[in-house]
Every structure is written in C-alpha cells, then in structure tokens.
C-alpha cells in the first residue's frame, strides 16, 4: 500500500519552504504534492520516496504529521476508475495528480477500491511505475 504523509502547516509565507527544506536536507524526494487550505492553516499531502524516514525526520522537527493509505492510478484510466468506484459506493475523499500521468486518490476504503479497480482491469500503480 502506498503511504501518503499529511503535514499540518500554518498558511504563512515560508512554512512550506521550511518543510521542503527539511526533506531535502535529509535526501528525501517529493514525488507528488497536494495542498488543502482553510484560512490560516492547511494540510500538505506528500508522496515521498522514503516515507518511513520522512515520518521520523518530520516528527523530530516537531511537526504534526501522520501516514495515510492512498492508491495511485494512471491519468488515462481516471474516467473509468471513478465510475467503477462510484458504482462500488466507494467515496473519493480527495485526489491530486502526480508526474502529469498519474493520479493519487484517497478513498473511503482502499482495499475494496483496489479490488474493484483490478477486477475492471485498471492497473493500480506503485510510486515508481512509468505510465
């Protein structure tokens, strides 16, 4: 299962730079990023190449951070994938794109979602899969 890290940040100039700087200093690469904001704070969602290490690094930098299971599919499968998930009564809580070719989906039930997608012949990808 792909792990996304979600980080609570204040919505002020420099906070995101600080976060990314910590990751860079620890040789952790950002593969995809999505931001949701509400007024003076927000959540940064990240797909990283070393999420376990990143979790430790960010926790020790006093950040409110946690792991969430997500799935990744190809962008060209998106239309049929959302239809399949809808038919299976699985909600997409949020989504963001990755590498211009992939989409990261947070769904209400990732195991069922993966089963439904695979059954319909849609490939569920890993972070390193090329499209």
């Amino acid at each position, binding site marked *: 299962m792909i792990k*996304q890290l*979600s980080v*609570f*940040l*204040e919505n002020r100039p420099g*906070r995101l730079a600080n976060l990314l700087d910590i990751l860079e200093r620890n040789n952790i690469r950002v593969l995809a990023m999505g931001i*949701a*904001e*509400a007024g*003076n*704070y*927000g*959540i940064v*969602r990240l797909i990283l190449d070393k999420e376990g290490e990143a979790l430790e690094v960010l*926790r020790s930098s*006093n*950040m*409110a951070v*946690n792991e*969430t299971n997500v799935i990744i599919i190809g962008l060209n499968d998106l239309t049929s994938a959302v239809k399949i998930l809808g038919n299976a009564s699985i909600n997409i*809580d*949020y989504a963001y794109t990755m590498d211009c070719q992939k989409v990261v989906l*947070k769904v209400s039930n990732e195991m069922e979602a993966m089963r439904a997608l695979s059954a319909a012949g849609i490939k569920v990808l890993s972070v390193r899969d090329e499209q």
Partner: protein
Amino acid sequence: MCTYKLSKSEIVELQNKRLRWLVKYVYERSPFYRRRFIENRIDPDDIRTKEDLKKIPFTTKTDLRDNYPLGLVSADPSQIVRFHASSGTTGNPTVVAYTKQDVENWAELNARCLEIAGVTSNDVVQVAYGYGLFTGGLGLHYGAERLGAKVIPASTGNTKRQLKLMKDLGTTVICCTPSYGLFLAESARDEGLDPKRDLKIRVGVFGAEPWSENTRRRLEEQFVESAHDIYGMSELNGPGVAMECSMKDGLHVWEDHYIVEIIDPNTGEVLEPGEKGEMAVTTIKKEGMPLLRYRTRDITILEDQPCECGLNHARIKRILGRTDDMLKIRGICVFPSQVEEILMKTEGVSPHYQLVVDREGVMDRLMVRVEVSEDFKTDRLTDLVNLQQKLEEELKDTLSIHAVVELVEPKKLPRSEGKAQRIIDMRKI
C-alpha cells in the same frame, strides 16, 4: 510537626489574639498605618476580634507602590534581615522586608505545606522555582530543609539539566510552576524518557500561576503521581500561605498566620463563605512588613466546612483568576483559566495557548491561538475545520463572547520557564 493541628476554636482564639497584637503593633510602629487609623478615626482598642476587621480600610498594591520602597515596614530597621522584591512590570517593584522571626515562620509554613502534600524527610525535593528576589525558590527551599528532606536547589531554566538531576539524583518531589511542569514532561519525552517510568516523582508542588483540574489530570498522567496546588505571594511572605492536602479539595490557609476575607472587588463588601470574590488577607504573625486586609487581586471562594484530612484550617478554592489578569472584552470578564479548561479537555490540541486581544474599529476581538498536538491523527482538512469550530463553539458557550480560534503548528507558541506569557493585549485604549 503537628503544632498546626488546631481545633477551630483554638484557631479563632489565636486569630483574635494575634489580630489585637498586630493592630497595636502597626499603630505604634508604622507611620503609614498610624496615619490610616487616625484619618479614619479608628481606635486600635476597638479592634477586638476578626469581625472588627471591617472597620479597617484595605491595603492595596497601590499603597505599596506609593510608599516605595520601605514605607510599609513596621519593624525597626535593625531587625530586618532580608528583602525580596516582585517584578515591577508597571513602575517600581514591590519590596518586602522580613525579620529573623518572619523567615523562621515562612520556613515553618512551607514545611507544613510540603507535609500535608505527603512529603517526608526521606524525599528528594527539586526546587525549580527561581531563587533570588522572587520568593518561590527560597520559600520552598526553607520548607523542604525544615522538613529534613534532601533539597536540590535547581532554580529555573536549563531544562536538560533539570531532567538529568531528576534522573541521576532520584528526585521524588518537584516544585515549579504548572506550565513548567508540563514543559518538563514534554521535554523528557523529547529526550526519549517516559517521565512516569524513568523518573520517580511522587509529589508535584505547583504554584505561582492559576491552573485547572484538567492540568492536574495531565500532570498526573504524564509527570507526577500526585499534583498539589500551593498559594502565596511575596507580600504575604511568599509561597506557603495555602496548600492542597491529600484530599485536593481546596487549599488550606494557615489561619493561625493569616486571616482571609473574600470581598466583592467592586464594593469592598465582605462576602459569605461559598461566594466568589477577591481575597483580602491580614498577616497576623508577620513583623517586618505586616499588612492589614491586603487586597491580593486573586479571585477565589472560601470554604469553611471541615476537611476530611482532619485539618481545621479553612480552605480556599483554586485561584479562579486575577482581578488584573481578567480581560474585559466587550464588557465581559474573561479569565485565561476558562480558556485553559476547554483546551485541556479537547483532543487534538496541546495545553499551550495564547490569548490575543485587539480592537477592530470600536469592537474588541479575541483570538485564541492553540497548538495542534503532534499526535494529531488526520489527513483531512474537514477534521481540522471541525476541531476549530468545536473550540469556537465551546469558547462561546463558556465566555459568552465569540473568539476566533487560530490553529498553529506544534511547539510554535512561546514556552515560559517561569510564569507563562499568555495574554497579548494590543488594544490601544
């Protein structure tokens, strides 16, 4: 040391006797009080029992400031052996003076406080209140020493060293502010220690700022076995005026040294036990700088029912706020302790907060800045928005005014090693 286990009638008898001594003493020795008595046509002989106290005007912080530095000292200068001073954020500091007997009594009262919290001569007592002009450090130091305990005079600051001392010397009693107590627990965890397992702190003596039952719960969950509230102020010797016993249902005031009245802060009228108001204290044993009906600016309730612990000294409830800490926002009184109470019971936020008041046009605005806790478990924005709204609703219910909640990142609010700086008032009045 059971000299203080007095019956109610013994206490009242001592209070009246010592009050008569005090009135005569200050009338003869203090130009300030003599003038006060004459101006108000009070004959010292008319003050026979504590019911007669009502005839005497209050002494206020302003009186101390106006008579800076030593205008309220009653003892002969040759008898003074010590000065302390409290911070003067507005103008002059408040200077207090002690005779040798005052220092002795102060030690005795602090020993009593520690004893009723369960401290014995076998304990290792780490005093992490400031030593110096501030009375916190030395007061508890003397008390612990009088009890025969082992004292670590750590003073404030240098948190890493505090933790090392606790671990290496086997500290069993910590004396510090409650906010520093929480900070110590947090820092211990950052160092990879589980304070409840790796340290063996039985008793926490927490004072110098108001705190809540929820803070007690946190301190007892995370740091000490048993957390006790201690009360005092430099004008009344320092710490050791009142202390929570093992029942933790109010703080016993050492009534053989202090007479407590609860008054209406606006009218000065004396209130009944059980009614909330400002505490005024008369120091009936102090020699250096005794005070008559000193207005403490602390808000509390007097509880005169017997305590299950067996002590007959009356109790005050935890300090509910200060008349001068109290924020008046759109005409409504807001106490930081009310905000703290709400934050403490809310999952997802830390107990550290800051109240910011400013004025938009003619309207006061209250903003409560709260830290999201590090173990905050959600990746969904709606959960954060819900947390913020829930806090805003609860604040509105409790304070009766709307407050904007601002969620900030963990450990972003300033930590104080003494009294926490929790209010920023930016109103230009």
